[in-house]
């Protein structure tokens, strides 16, 4: 098994660690970097519980190997709040009952975050497309869609700059 040195930028901070080249980014984030918001559901790219933003795009972290993540810029839920102030998406999710058991929430939030990075004023169809890879077993989809829509509105009104770590 080959171990390698990996450099990533995690939530704005450069990091360097050693990991087996074939270890999943999901396990690196949870076990080596303490990002426990990232959840393992299916481990096969079917459920979206492990979605993080990698170089500006939502990806299933269970389907990225350490060797593939080397050099990437990664954002997880831990990077959303800015100086203790929740990101508009986080606030909308909690205020609008967008999660019940909460297991899908980090993945949903990161899919939504990636959407708003590219599309600040998404249509309902675009919101639905953005979260189609995220399964919610409590079936809170409608509340999730409404929360994303509300957060997009708040961001546009400039209530709070997006909590991008580099903002």
């Amino acid at each position: 098994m080959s171990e390698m040195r990996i450099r990533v930028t995690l939530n704005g901070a450069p990091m360097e660690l050693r990991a087996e080249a074939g270890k999943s980014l999901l396990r690196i984030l949870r076990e080596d970097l303490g990002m426990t918001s990232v959840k393992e559901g299916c481990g096969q790219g079917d459920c979206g519980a492990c979605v993080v933003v990698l170089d500006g795009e939502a990806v299933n972290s269970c389907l990225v190997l350490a060797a593939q993540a080397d050099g990437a810029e990664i954002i997880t839920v831990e990077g959303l709040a800015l100086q203790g102030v929740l990101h508009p998406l986080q606030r909308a999710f909690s205020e609008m009952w967008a999660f019940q058991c909460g297991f899908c929430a980090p993945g949903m939030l990161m899919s939504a975050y990636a959407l708003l990075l590219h599309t600040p004023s998404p249509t309902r169809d675009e919101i639905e497309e953005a979260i189609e890879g995220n399964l919610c077993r409590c079936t809170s989809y409608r509340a999730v869609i409404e929360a994303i829509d509300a957060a997009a509105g708040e961001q546009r009104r400039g209530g709070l700059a997006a909590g991008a770590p580099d903002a």
Partner: protein
Amino acid sequence: MTVPDVLSPSTLTEALDLLRRHAGRARLIAGGTDLIPRLRLGENRPAVLINLSRVSIPGLRREGDWIIVGAGMTHSALARAPEIRKHFPALACSCQSIGGRPVRNRGTIGGNLANASPAADTAPALLIYDAELRLLRSEGERCIPISELFTGPGATVLREDEMIVEVCLPLPRPRSGASFIKLGRRQSMAIAVVSVAARLTLDAADCAAEVRLAMGSAAPVPFRAATAEGLLLGAPLEEERIRAAAAAAREAAAPISDLRATASYRSRMVEVLARRALYLAWEAARV
């Protein structure tokens, strides 16, 4: 999962060299959306993974009457590329139908083809556009039509040291229309029960000058329904002919029963979807 060694070349030449040196015991990994789950299931045990994430293959360019697509382009990138949406809408649509957003953001067109799933969503679309594949290995290169790639479920004519580097698409002639329809158990995150792509090119007399009809998940490999195409070629399009062509497509299909659908349901759906796909292509060609 038993993780093989991962090698990360930084150039295409280096990658091909590694592939030659480890021929027979290595797999290339691009997006990994298909390969990684298979590794975890233990279906596939290569000793070495050759990671292509540092190898840059140009994305998309035009060369005369061709659009050349780099094999490393993701499904998301293809689905939103203006040249693909404009000239190859059925391909854009097939890319958009794959998995969910996070899968499309990683999975590549080269990987979708090399994995050779009978249900590969991009295959029927590439078949109707007469795509050609540029294959590279250390000792040289060759081009093959997409129709010659697949030899069975998970099997291709690719040599052990060979890589798909480009997908070459000839621009369709004017008055062409195309469509892609995927039937799955749900709209996203679903493997196709059946998928059908169609393309029609009309001549000045509104007769079908070119006909393409291709299917996925309907046989051991994605394929073109030649008899069905022949029934429409050179004649004015009309309902009866389209029905006959769809019935011929059903005859040509040899689907299996699996957890997604029975063979008999798939056969019936081939006919229904072929008819719909031909109508949609016809409609698009007349615009």
